[in-house]
Structure formats: structure tokens, C-alpha cells
């Protein structure tokens, strides 16, 4: 039986690395970039000591293709980067989706576009939830808001990836990556108990047909069949894997929707609004894809009169909130970009503005 782990104080980036190893990751391929470098540094120190392979690739593109290779052979493999480096991985992730390969991609976001800055940002929401690469595909995207969730969600990401044979992404940001918080680490997985991968290219040993890992289908009907089969899996993911936290949403009239770093600021603002007697709440998506539409339905059913999407970008997730709200409740947006973080006071002002508007509408 696993011992109860003690709480330790660790940086978010280091926790991503430690929890990945405990989830059974034995292959890590990366390339340094602020603000995620501590993750690779931690892997470099520790992974070889537990029988794994750490490799600093010559580029981000090489790193993601090494993940493709390790995943093809059935290993739990991971790569990490920050925004500009993740763009470079796009092609490889699309190939992984096309070949139905599990693997975990970490994005500790910084401001963009281009080289942008190095401070926390959420400007890669579209990229992560819509299309990290070309073609018709999605992948589970998990958004940690605490260092504890860095551990829990990277653990979950490996399981989702294996279960649904898909790449999975952790969309974090410079705040959660750089900060230290207490964390209780998950137990180390016994590698022999990980799910079997009968499709992996592990050698036939003259006992079975060749396994083929490939994303090239020159016959249109075969490619469509493959895509439809994959989207049937996506349907299962959408139906069963939505995750979120609801805070003070039972009677909330104004519901903030925020994930990751922004959700922490929103949480402080919601508490301050409650102190002023405003019925505010927070819907925090943990899965960005699939977006927690059922929770949006629930909040609307509870009597929500206005949504406010708070993001560290110019307004991306707000589109998913609008789609989920489907015209039932008005959706507004507040965000800062470039590594500038909104203060709780700024967000509170937005809530107060909505509250007085609702008051007038009610008269």
C-alpha cells in the first residue's frame, strides 16, 4: 500500500516533471525556453536515475518527433516548451493525432505573438483547443490553477492519452510554472500495471502480424473512416471527461469563467464581490477541451444572469462560453495581455459594473 505522502513545497515546473515520472513517463525530450526550463532541468537530473532517458533535442521539432517515436514503441513520453516553442511542435502533434499516438505535451505559456515576452499569458487557448497542427483533430487540454493540480493533471493527462490514444496537453502558464506551493505528490505507478498497448511497434517476435503506426492514408474512404472512428472517440471524451470547479455558483447571478492563473485572480475578486453582497460565482474549467458545457448549463439553470470571461489574452475562451451559453445569458469579457496581469480590484470593478447593470435591468 502506498504511504501517505507529505506536503512539500515545490515549483510548478518541477512538479510537472516529478508527477510525470510518477505517472510512468520514462522518456522526455525537450529544448530550453523560459518560463518552463526548470521542468527540463529537473528531468535531466532525475530521469536517468530511475532508468529513463532525458534528451535535450536539437530543436522543438526534433523533440516532438522523438515523442512520436517513443510513443509508437508503447512508452509514456512527454515534451515541454513555452508558447513559441509549442508552435514548432504543431506539425508533430498533428502527426501523433493522425497516427492515434498517446503522449503528453506541456505548454507553460508566455506572452505572444512571435517571441512575445516571458511573463504569464493565456494567449495560446485557441492553439491548444482548436488546432495545434493541421488537419481535423482535437486533444484533451487540461488547465492547472495550482501547483497541486500540476501534479494531478499531468498524471491524468497520461491516462487520458493512453485510454483514448490521443496526444494530451497541459496548458499552464508562467505563474503556475514559476510559483512554489505545497503539494502532495501522487504515488509512483508500477510500470507493469500500465494499460497494455497491443498496437505498439514492439516487434512481432514471429507471433503476430506487423503493427503499423502511420498517419498517411491515400485512399479517401480509408482516411474518412479513420477520421470518423477518431471522432467517435472524441464524442466519448466530450460526454465523459468534462471537468471543472464551481465556486459559489449555487445562487450566483454573475458567474466568472476563468482558468489557470486568471482563475486565481477571479477567485479573489469573487470573494470581494460576495463581501459587497453581490451574488458572484466562479466556473473554473479544468478541461479546456472538452469545454465544460454541462457546467455552463447547470449554472444557467441555477439562475445565472451574466457571464464574465476573464483571461490573460484579448478574448479567446469567451467564444466557448458564448457557444455554451447559446444566447441564454449575455457573455462579456475582461482580459490583460503581454504578461500584464489584471489585479483582483480591476476584475471586481467589472463585476460591480455588471451588477449595477443587472440592477437597472431589473427595475
Amino acid at each position, binding site marked *: 500500500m502506498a504511504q501517505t505522502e507529505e*506536503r*512539500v*513545497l515545490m515549483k510548478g515546473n518541477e512538479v510537472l516533471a516529478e508527477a510525470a515520472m510518477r505517472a510512468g513517463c520514462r522518456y522526455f525530450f525537450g529544448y530550453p525556453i*523560459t*518560463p518552463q526550463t526548470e521542468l527540463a532541468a529537473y528531468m535531466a537530473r532525475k530521469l536517468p536515475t530511475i532508468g529513463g532517458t532525458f534528451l535535450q533535442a536539437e530543436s522543438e521539432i526534433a523533440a516532438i518527433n522523438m515523442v512520436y517515436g517513443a510513443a509508437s514503441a508503447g512508452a509514456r513520453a512527454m515534451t515541454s516548451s513555452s508558447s513559441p516553442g509549442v508552435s514548432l511542435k504543431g506539425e508533430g502533434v498533428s502527426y501523433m493525432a493522425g497516427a492515434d499516438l498517446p503522449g503528453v505535451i506541456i505548454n507553460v505559456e508566455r506572452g505572444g505573438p512571435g517571441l512575445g515576452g*516571458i*511573463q504569464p499569458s493565456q494567449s495560446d487557448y485557441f492553439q491548444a483547443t482548436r488546432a495545434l497542427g493541421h488537419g481535423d483533430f482535437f486533444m484533451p487540454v487540461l488547465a492547472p490553477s495550482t501547483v497541486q493540480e500540476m501534479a494531478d493533471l499531468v498524471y491524468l493527462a497520461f491516462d487520458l492519452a493512453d485510454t483514448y490514444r490521443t496526444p494530451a496537453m497541459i496548458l499552464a502558464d*508562467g*505563474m503556475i510554472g*514559476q*510559483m*512554489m*506551493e*505545497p503539494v502532495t505528490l501522487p504515488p509512483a505507478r508500477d510500470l507493469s500495471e500500465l494499460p497494455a498497448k497491443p498496437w505498439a511497434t514492439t516487434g512481432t517476435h514471429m507471433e503476430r502480424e506487423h503493427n503499423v503506426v502511420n498517419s498517411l492514408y491515400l485512399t479517401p474512404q480509408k482516411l474518412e473512416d479513420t477520421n470518423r472512428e477518431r471522432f467517435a472517440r472524441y464524442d466519448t471524451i466530450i460526454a465523459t471527461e468534462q471537468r471543472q470547479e464551481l465556486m459559489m455558483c449555487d445562487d450566483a447571478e454573475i458567474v466568472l469563467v476563468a482558468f489557470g*492563473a486568471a482563475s*486565481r*485572480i*477571479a*477567485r*479573489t*475578486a469573487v*470573494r470581494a464581490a460576495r463581501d459587497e453582497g453581490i451574488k458572484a460565482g466562479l466556473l473554473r474549467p479544468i478541461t479546456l477541451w472538452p469545454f465544460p458545457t454541462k457546467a455552463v448549463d447547470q449554472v444557467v439553470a441555477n439562475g445565472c444572469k451574466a457571464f464574465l470571461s476573464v483571461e490573460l489574452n484579448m478574448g479567446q475562451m469567451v467564444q466557448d462560453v458564448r457557444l455554451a451559453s447559446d444566447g441564454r445569458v449575455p457573455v462579456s469579457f475582461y482580459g490583460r495581455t503581454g504578461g500584464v*496581469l489584471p*489585479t*483582483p*480590484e480591476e476584475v471586481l470593478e467589472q463585476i460591480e459594473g455588471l451588477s449595477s447593470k443587472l440592477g437597472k435591468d431589473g427595475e
Partner: protein
Amino acid sequence: MADETSIKTREMLCVLAGFGGQGVLFAGKVMANAGLIDGRNVSWMPSYGPEMRGGTANCNVSLSDDAIGTPFITKPTALIAMNQPSLEKFAEAVVPGGVIVVDTTLAMNASEVHSSEGVARFEIPATQMAEDNGLKGLANVICLGKLWKETRFCDRGVLDAALEKCVPAKHRNLLEPNRRALQIGIDL
């Protein structure tokens, strides 16, 4: 002993700021580990990137009985300022009832910097004191000792344990000087 027990407030929001290399991140880690040992909610948020390499460095440490929202502190209840620019940048933000500890060796014009009414300010020549006591580089821990004395954010035993935890095993020889520096700050 009565003067060794904590008088914890519900929330301690501390900014520690100075030049890179002065050890503000280390002092913040000691504070954060004290919160960890106490079983409180804790966050430690450093400045990162190029400014860490020789420029200004700061970290935000929150110790709270509630879940912590943003780890970036806009209204600190405590400030350790180890140079003039840090004092100028953060002093004004400290809330009434808050505490400022400033190292006047490197903040020579500390008295010209305004802070809110009701903020207690302690001006100590920490860097000079460290040098005088053969504790070069431990002005940070002297300032931490002074801040602990004025805020008592944890029990003394917890503070000592946190300090011990933060001195890496391979630098065990540095534990004793760190302890002396802490005591100097507390005795001020």
C-alpha cells in the same frame, strides 16, 4: 516562552525585494517553509527571467488560513526592502498596520521614501551588520529575523526548522552562520 510564540494574522502578504544575489528569494523560501510546517496555505512567487541575473529581484510570499487567490501581492502587509529602488517601488503599497524592514546600507535615502500612515518602519543597516559580524551575504536573514520579531508570522521553533530546511545538505556549514544572522535580526 511567551515572546517566542506566534501572533499569526489570518493572512501574511509579504514582498521581499532587492538586487539579484542579495538572497531575497531565499528569505522568502524560509518564510514559505514556515507556513508549510504550520500547515497553512502558502504561495511563493518569484520574479523570473533576465532580471534575476544581476538586476532587481523580488518574491511575493503569501501565508494564509484561506485558499490563496493570486500569488501576486498588490497590497502587502509586510515588506523587506534591501535597496533603495525596492523601497521606492513597494513602500507606498504596504497597507496600514503593515511592517517595513529596510536595509539602510543600500537604501541610503530611506527616510525620503513615503509610506502610508500606520505602517511601522524599521530601518536597519543589515548589510553593514552582516559584514561587521563576519556574515557577508546574510543581510537577507538579518532582515528576516527582524521581520519575524515584528510580525511573529510563526512560532520561533517553526522559524528555526524552516531555516534549517532551506539550507541545502551540501552547504551544511552555512547553517550556523544563517542561525547567527537570524538571531542578530531578532535581537535588534
